[in-house]
């Protein structure tokens, strides 16, 4: 654990110092350049905001509606056939749409079944190796004003599905 802690504590300060030292030694006007870059960041943020409002409204409605619980009951038998523990299905369904929701669900799984249970391990792998797909797609395309996203969602969903099946398989193979 101390290795992880070491990296997570040192990664950002080391990286920022490196950038600053190299910048100064190459005679970059560091303060002025920082301001220019920060200004770009703020403008982008404003551009993403409408898409964010649309998405987060829809996702919080979905979570409030109770449909995820209904879906879990329907999917559980099929998931069992693929070797996916039924306890992680709510997490698998929430993961692509809500980052904070998925994290809360993960804690719930740890608290109920234990971090070292099969469900706990598969959930850990799933959470670590997938992303908040819908949020990423909305924010990235929203920032550049792309309307036609073509086959992005289909490809990303294929990756997410692979992640769910593989996480159960990998835990079985590597952690037995």
């Amino acid at each position, binding site marked *: 654990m101390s290795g992880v802690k070491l990296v997570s504590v040192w990664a950002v300060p080391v990286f920022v110092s490196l950038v600053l030292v190299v910048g100064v030694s190459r005679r970059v006007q560091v303060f002025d350049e920082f301001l220019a870059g920060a200004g770009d960041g703020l403008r982008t943020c404003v551009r993403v*905001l409408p898409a964010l409002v649309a998405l987060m409204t829809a996702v919080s409605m979905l979570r409030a509606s109770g449909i995820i619980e209904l879906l879990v009951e329907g999917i559980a038998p099929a998931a069992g056939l693929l070797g996916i523990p039924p306890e992680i299905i709510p997490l698998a369904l929430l993961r692509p749409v809500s980052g904070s929701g998925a994290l809360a669900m993960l804690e719930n799984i740890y608290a109920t079944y234990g971090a070292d249970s099969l469900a706990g391990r598969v959930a850990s792998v799933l959470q670590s190796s997938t992303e908040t797909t819908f949020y990423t797609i909305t924010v*990235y395309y929203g920032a550049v004003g792309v309307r036609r996203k073509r086959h992005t*969602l289909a490809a990303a969903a294929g990756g997410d599905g692979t992640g769910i099946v593989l996480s159960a398989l990998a835990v079985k193979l590597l952690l037995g």
Partner: protein
Amino acid sequence: MLNVIWVGIMLISIAAGAATGKLEQVTNALLGGGEQAITLALTLGGAMCLWGGVMRIAEKGGLTALLAKVLAPLMRLLFPGLDPSGAACRAILMNMAANFLGLGNAATPLGIRAMNELSQLNPEPQSASRHMITFVVLNTASIQFLPTTVATLRLKYGAENPLNILPAVWLTSLGAAAVAIALSHLFALPNKKPQRQASASRRKAKA
């Protein structure tokens, strides 16, 4: 596609809420979602300013160009036809580096910068280019070397060895990313020609 999904999610939520007797909660979510988004944007805004500024210094100091040179073969494989030393490639690499180290707060603003660069190379700004799709899919698949948040949570809940999941995480995230990228290239095949023709006719119209 997101058009249909967005409307679908909202209507299904309302219908399901009515069926499960949670309509009131759904209404509250509908009215409160915007507020949540603004809060998130404000949080994200600080990080975007910070990392936008830091990256600009890194670029002026020549750090990103160095990274691009080292990883050029990988970039040629993932983004065929994109200049490996160009601004777009450099921005993509910085985003991938942040993702790899589990620095989610830094990865998003860097990724948006990469999208801006890719957008400038896109002959049809309204429509996602091939490289944009590969890049976004790469981000949704999240290749992470060190899942710091999950490791911390596992420790908190008494896992014997919080990091024993690492090999499984690497296998899963690489496998999922490989499938997603393969799919993005596969789905691109029938679309390639019409896109090129469209951009050619646009150029003609401009001339």
